[in-house]
């Protein structure tokens, strides 16, 4: 059985167009969340990407009128990975696209692609990315609610370990749309201020948008982290409410640690989901209590990016990888007083600390949970 590594990564977010730029902003505790105005005139907080800059950058590689905003962001980020890695795409190169809603904005008559009825189908998004770069295999589109981005890492690891693929490009992304805003508003889940994960004063989520890409590979390089273990278990409890016992998250962590052959005390840092809804944050705290992991430094990055849906898991994985590389813990922005029943160890200030292993977790509608353990490589 082969080993699987992440060797290259990049992202496009409200805080910049590269992983490094993003990480530096987080070290300085700068948020990408700002006040925006809805189509109906209401104001809301959100973290959004500079679309003019997307067009400016994209015009260097393609015609900006031929692609949707999400496609342009995905293409830009895959282009960057291919260039940096000098990867030669072969029939053993996989492509995974992780997204919760894809080109859902094309269902609206306000979209330039409204009349292209195919465009709202996820396989068409896959085809756009595949064709642009001449990938040999059909894109694997993964749409599993808010765990999509981190589940894609688990799927890539499994295919690399089993020698189905030598390397897998993963691109994950979601945009802020009226569709998403109205949906979360209907759940009364949207905060009227920038979100405050794990805080006693939290009032719900902030929606964000981003695209993140990584190269998963059986070959390591000097920047590589190893994907040590993965797990993705269902709560079997409720389709829209997190389990009160954190069952699926507990099982996912156990499954990932078992595969990694590690005990929970080997984890130096947890990059949690932390959406800042009452139920989600409480569920996570209960799960980490059950797992005996309350002492481990933990953060949610939603205070910087909001909840970027399917992109969040991969975006937060990349920040975790940068944390490992720089031996730097990022603060959990928006946190003040603890507001969950278990005393988790929320990171309040950026801190230098030797880091070797971290855990990325995510949970979503449908009762899904995904956990991946990453480790520094020593050589």
């Amino acid at each position, binding site marked *: 059985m082969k080993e699987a590594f992440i060797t290259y990564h990049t992202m496009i977010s409200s805080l910049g167009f590269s992983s490094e730029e993003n990480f530096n902003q987080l070290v300085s505790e700068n948020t990408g969340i700002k006040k925006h105005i809805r189509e109906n005139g209401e104001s809301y907080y959100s973290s959004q990407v500079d679309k003019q800059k997307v067009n400016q950058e994209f015009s260097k590689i393609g015609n900006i009128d031929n692609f949707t905003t999400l496609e342009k962001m995905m293409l830009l980020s895959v282009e960057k990975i291919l260039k940096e890695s000098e990867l030669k795409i072969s029939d053993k190169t996989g492509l995974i696209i992780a997204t919760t809603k*894809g080109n859902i904005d094309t269902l609206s008559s306000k979209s330039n692609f409204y009349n292209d009825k195919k465009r709202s189908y996820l*396989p068409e998004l896959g085809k756009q990315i595949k064709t642009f770069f001449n990938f040999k295999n*059909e894109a*694997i589109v993964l749409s599993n609610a808010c765990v999509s981005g981190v589940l894609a890492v688990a*799927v890539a690891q499994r295919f690399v370990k089993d020698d189905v693929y030598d390397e897998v490009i993963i691109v994950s992304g979601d945009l802020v749309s*009226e569709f998403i805003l109205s949906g979360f508003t209907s759940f009364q889940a949207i905060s009227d201020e920038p979100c405050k994960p794990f805080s006693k004063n939290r009032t719900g989520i902030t929606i964000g948008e981003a695209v993140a890409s990584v190269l998963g590979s059986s070959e390591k390089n000097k920047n590589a982290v190893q994907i040590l273990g993965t797990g993705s278990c269902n709560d*079997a409890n409720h*389709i*829209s409410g997190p389990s009160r016992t954190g069952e699926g998250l507990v099982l996912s962590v156990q499954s990932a640690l078992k595969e990694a052959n590690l005990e929970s005390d080997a984890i130096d840092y947890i990059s949690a989901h932390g959406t800042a809804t009452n139920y989600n944050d409480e569920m996570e705290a209960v799960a980490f209590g059950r797992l005996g992991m309350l002492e481990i430094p933990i953060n949610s990055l939603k205070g910087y990016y909001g909840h970027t849906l399917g992109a969040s898991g991969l975006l937060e994985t990349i920040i975790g990888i940068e944390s490992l590389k720089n031996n730097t813990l990022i603060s959990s922005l928006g946190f003040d007083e603890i507001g969950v029943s278990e005393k988790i160890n929320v990171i309040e200030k950026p801190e230098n600390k030797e880091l070797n292993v971290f855990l990325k977790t995510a949970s979503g509608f*449908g009762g899904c949970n995904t956990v991946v353990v990453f480790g520094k490589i020593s050589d």
Partner: protein
Amino acid sequence: MSEKLYIQKYCSIKNKEVYVGGKLMFSSETSIAKDFFKSVYQFLDIKYSKFFKMDNLSKLAFLSAEFLLDKNVSEEKNTAIILSNNASSLDTDRKYQDSINDSENYYPSPAVFVYTLPNIGIGEISIRHQLKSENGFFVFENYNANFHYNYENSLLQNNKCDSVLAGWVNIDKDSYEAFLYLVSERGEIEHTEENLKQLYNL
């Protein structure tokens, strides 16, 4: 696990008919998906009121699973669910978009919004059969036997689960199609890409 793997059971639902293990189990005259699903539910003779709250995609996934999972044994089994389709949740997405286009009804009910995710059907099956195992929902142009074979094989060979409930479950406007199967160490049809393709095309 390094045992040989088998397609233990399989089921397909399309064109007003239900086939289990290649044998016709149920057929109906109704051409409306929602009504057809209700008649299949009645044929199964179960009481599960949550069924009536589901969207069509979840109903189709749920019904297909009912034909394959034994309610008495699934509780202790670590059964993963890996589904795929072409249209994701677009059938419900379009209804949701129609309602937000209407400013009178700008905030539709959260009970509709939650079904704008294709993996909700996996959640429904998990709740019904208390399956707390691996999940994944994938989207392809057509049923991708190569992907399914490789991923099911990986989950089982790496001991992530004891069996996998997997397959294709698609709803797009008026058309519906499900092909679900159970992969485990038991059975007679070997779990191969070729066999998956053949059974899908039956």
